[in-house]
């Protein structure tokens, strides 16, 4: 399970990072979303992965760490709000600048259409 989990997190991070470095606002927003998914998965795993573990009970050896779950909830809420904000901001930038480039510049000659 650990390797599958690690590969999933890694692939999500790589995709997110690639999209964040693109020049148009839409891929950037999608990239940030993927990045925050990857971060949430990563945070979730930081207490160690357990299956069928109990919540902390005295004397039980096999238990799940409850703290990362609380942290992930906080991170999800904050990430959701931030994504909503950045989507609106990208739309405003699109309407103000007339194009969706992150620098607000016009398409250069010879550059392909998005």
């Amino acid at each position, binding site marked *: 399970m650990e390797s599958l989990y690690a590969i999933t997190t890694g692939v999500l991070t790589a995709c997110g990072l690639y999209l*964040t470095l693109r020049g148009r*606002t839409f891929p*950037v927003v999608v990239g*940030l979303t993927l*990045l*925050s998914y*990857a*971060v949430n998965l*990563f*945070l979730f795993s*930081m*207490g*160690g992965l357990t299956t069928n573990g109990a919540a902390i009970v005295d004397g039980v050896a096999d238990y799940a760490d409850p*703290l*990362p779950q609380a*942290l992930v909830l*906080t*991170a999800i809420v*904050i990430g959701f*709000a*931030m994504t909503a*904000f*950045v989507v609106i*901001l*990208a739309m*405003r*930038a699109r309407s*103000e*600048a007339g194009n969706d480039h*992150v*620098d*607000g510049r016009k398409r250069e000659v010879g550059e392909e259409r998005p």
Partner: protein
Amino acid sequence: MMQHLIALPIVLPLVAGILLLYSRQGETRLKRLVGVFATLLLVVVGIGLVARAAGGEVTYYALGDWQPPFGIVLVLDRLSALMVLLTAVLALGAVVFACAGDDEQGSNFHGLFQWQLMGINGAFLTGDLFNLFVFFEVLLLASYALLLHGGGKARIQAGVHYVVLNLAGSSLFLIAVGVLYGATGTLNMADMAVRLAELPAERAGLVSAGALMLLVVFGLKAAILPLYFWLPRAYAAAPAPVAALFAIMTKVGIYAILRVYSLIFGEQAGPLAALEQPWVWWLSLATLAAAGVGVLAARDLRLLVAYLVLVSVGTLLAGIGMRSPEATAALLYYLVHTTLVTGGLFLLAELIGLQRGKAGTRLVRGRPLRQGGWLAGLFFLGAVAVAGLPPLSGAIGKALVLQAADAGQRLWLWPILLATGLFTLIALSRAGSTLFWRSRGEPGGEPLSRRRWFGVAWLLGASPLLVVLAGPVSDYTRATADQLARPAILIDSLLSTAGDAP
């Protein structure tokens, strides 16, 4: 009541912000009254906190009475008290300035302003690494909205860069916090410091990766060299009172570096102690050099002041990079001076731009100013202070930083810092002579309102005041540096059972 004082810098702006939500449109007078009154109260609370922390005792406030290391705590020591007071003083100048009309260009200025204060104060007071992330997000979300206040193409463009960069930074922050939690099993900073002392050797690599990732995040907030490119455009595009408040935002990053690496990665961390030091030291020198070039190249007064913020960031980081109590004491004195003076210069740039009509703050020939004498006088005061010329506070701060460097560091720091000072001087003299002397036509613009004059005078007046009070202030900063150099004081007062819990 007294034990709840520590939570007040967070609760007070929160409540004020919520109250301000009740009337989003209209009732300008009432909203201004609430905003200014809440900020004034914050100054009083800040003075109370400094008075309480000055004795050297570290006190904490356990939220929900969950004792550390399990609960979330707010920690008050000399450093956090100083930062809270500094924020409140800066905010008072900015909010009074905004009451002259800037707050009416968009909706809910005062509410967002209070929430930003809540985030900043929370970041200064928290003793928990994840809570630091949460307060960073609070202050960032408020700052996104404040940066866009009033709208306009330049602001939105700068806003897109600022928001995207900071969101990526937040992801990195979470990863770093996750790594540190996974390696040490705690999020309380004091507890983490204790556990690092008995860290198994195989986890040292994990912890140092997490610690350096945190440095990247704090460096993004503080605007260190490879991560500062968002700053000049964002600060130059922001509305003046917001830009003035943003002068403390880079200092939040500086504070976080100072706090995390002096407390968690202090001497008790063994091989991991001071692992940020070479990075901070060399990058701070590079930041100083780049900022010096930027100051010379700026063709707009607001952009010039934004680069002056970068100069101050470089100087402060050099102080952290030296990692000695003398350097910390020097940088804290410089921090108080530079925050207030650069904040005041942002406000002053707005006043000058208002009276020059179409030329605005661009450094080109324009109309003469109607109240040019007063503005030129204030500009002279601000320029002397920020360039570090005697007799104002910049000279004292800079001399303290220069003196704190040891022989090997002097070789690098002195030429770069002094050259940057010279560049600042050249750029500011050129800007001043263009703005006030190279003019033609009839003087234009309305006379400025008294609130605006108050905002500028309040912040720039801090510089002479800091000279008069140089003795007590530098005594306090030296005591703060001593406290920071001995993290055991904070750790003992938090992790022993006796505390100041409600």
